[in-house]
């Protein structure tokens, strides 16, 4: 990719990050934000209230960073799966991670787990769900794509049913609304602590995917063909599935169910940078990060009551996707 494009890929998200720190329901003047951000590095005497500092550094900054990592993570996962399944209509949920995570979170909320308990349980159940799918799909030393998809459908349906079960028994005055809103998706609960829990798996998974970018290209030609070019397809698929699951389970555990990001962003990115995963994966990270960051800004600022993230991404993502489909007429040029 051209030099200018690389620069843009790094600068645009950073610029979006800075802008996001300026907006919010609590008024903090732009100049003050800049000074608060600079204060750990430069000797600036504080002329702002402690509340403002808490808002910028403890509430807005962690939340914005989390939005970027979740957006980047979901996008790179979607792109990798679309390559692996050779199908541009695939999203990271296809192997059941979202349904399983959602159930884990609901279970924890039902048992009155604190924020950490909910995140941990959601994460572990997400991994469990994909593990089940993988085991179910394993046929004699290989994991054919069709088996993965079908197993994913089965596992997702199973956990969805369990999730409905938790909603059925939940106390309608406090637990049920908590579960409902959690499932709709929100970055409301982001703290420095949840950031510390979610970032390592996301980064680990993303690094894993980046390392196999070229092999993903070859894998997208088909299992047999990739095998003939020397690729251990079952091993590569295992690496890809493990990496994306780390990312998506972590993302869902801190953010709830946010759809349409892992599906739309890879498409858009592919239209701009082409199908070569060496450029596609990093670009998807960059675009995904910026996208979710801006959407979350709207979610937390547009009205006094938070708009659930999942609703916004669907309301924005689905029509946009329809537009993309019309524009490309189904081809990926």
């Amino acid at each position, binding site marked *: 990719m051209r030099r200018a494009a690389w620069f843009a890929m790094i600068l645009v998200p950073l610029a979006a990050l800075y802008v996001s720190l300026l907006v919010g329901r609590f008024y903090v003047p732009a100049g003050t934000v800049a000074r608060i951000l600079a204060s750990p590095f430069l000797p600036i005497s504080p002329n702002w209230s402690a509340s403002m500092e808490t808002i910028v550094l403890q509430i807005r900054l962690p939340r914005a960073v989390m939005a970027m990592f979740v957006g980047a993570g979901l996008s790179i996962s979607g792109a990798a799966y679309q*390559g692996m399944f*050779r*199908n*541009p209509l695939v999203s990271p949920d296809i192997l059941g991670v979202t349904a399983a995570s959602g159930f884990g979170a609901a279970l924890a909320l039902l048992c009155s787990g604190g924020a950490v308990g909910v995140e941990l349980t959601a994460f572990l159940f997400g991994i469990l769900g994909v593990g089940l799918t993988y085991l179910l799909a394993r046929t004699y030393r290989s994991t054919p794509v069709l088996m993965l998809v079908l197993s994913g459908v089965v596992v997702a349906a199973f956990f969805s049913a369990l999730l409905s079960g938790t909603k059925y028994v939940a106390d309608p005055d406090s637990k049920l609304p908590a579960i409902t809103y959690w499932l709709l998706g929100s970055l409301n609960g982001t703290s420095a602590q949840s950031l510390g829990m979610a970032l390592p798996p996301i980064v680990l998974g993303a690094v894993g995917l980046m*390392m*196999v*970018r*070229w*092999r993903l*290209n*070859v894998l*997208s*030609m*088909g299992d*047999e*063909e990739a*095998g*003939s*070019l*020397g*690729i*251990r397809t079952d091993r590569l698929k295992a690496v890809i599935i493990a990496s994306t699951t780390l990312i998506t389970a972590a993302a869902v555990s801190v953010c709830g169910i946010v759809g349409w990001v892992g599906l739309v962003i890879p498409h858009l990115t*592919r239209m701009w940078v*082409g*199908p*070569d995963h*060496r450029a596609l994966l990093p670009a998807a990270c960059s675009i995904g990060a910026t996208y979710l960051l801006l959407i979350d800004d709207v979610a937390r600022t547009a009205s006094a009551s938070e708009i659930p993230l999942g609703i916004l991404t669907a309301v924005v993502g689905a029509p946009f996707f329809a537009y993309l489909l019309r524009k490309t007429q189904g*081809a*990926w*040029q």
Partner: protein
Amino acid sequence: MEVRRAAFKYAAHMIFEALDFDVSAGEVLTVLGANGCGKSTLLRCLAGTLRLSAGSVRISGEELAGLDSTARARKVAILFQEHQVTFPFSALDIVTMGRTPYLSAFGSPSAQDREAAAHALEEFGLLHVKDRAYTELSGGERQLVLLCRTFVQQPAVILLDEPTAHLDFRNQVRCLDMIGMLAARGVAIVLTSHDPNHAFLFPGRALLMQLDRSAVIGAPSEIINRASLTATYGIDVGVFSIDRPPPAKKLSFCSPW
């Protein structure tokens, strides 16, 4: 490539057995047979994609079954009949994929790899499609690009499964020309074909897989005749020849009676 006593069984169904043959560098072995006689299966066994039920395949002296997939890919390249490309990679990208067996576990192709790929395209007269999307090329151009890829893979043996299927007449000729060029560069080639005429086009032998599951190997001029073709295809086919002025050799072709 040396094949000894190769046999393949699918469930209880014997596809072929006791096959013995050699293919040396620069030689083209044309495998002929009716649909369903096991040509593709044989090819897959030679590629190592399917495991033989009995017998062995050796390439450059090394047992194929003992090689891991990367080592295998450096020795054998195979083009399948069904080919699906979902994403619009450029022709250069596709050819560069041939270098995959030589990359490290997490590596990407280097500048040299890309140059080698571009060079191959140029050598085979395909430079003009280098940057075009593979999905936009015609069927014939695609096949040629894939053949380029097999070349870049620098294997000892190239296996081709009905390479001229789905091609129009012109592209069939171009494809067969390129196969000849590949052989001339010292690669051993095994190709399956539905058209017995192909056996006459290349320097090398023919393998006829007959309807009774037996196989006949030999020079085309010797083994391809009315009787053997009838045993292979189950219809009455005659072999004809046309003399041409020297130094051109006699032209042979098959046609149903």
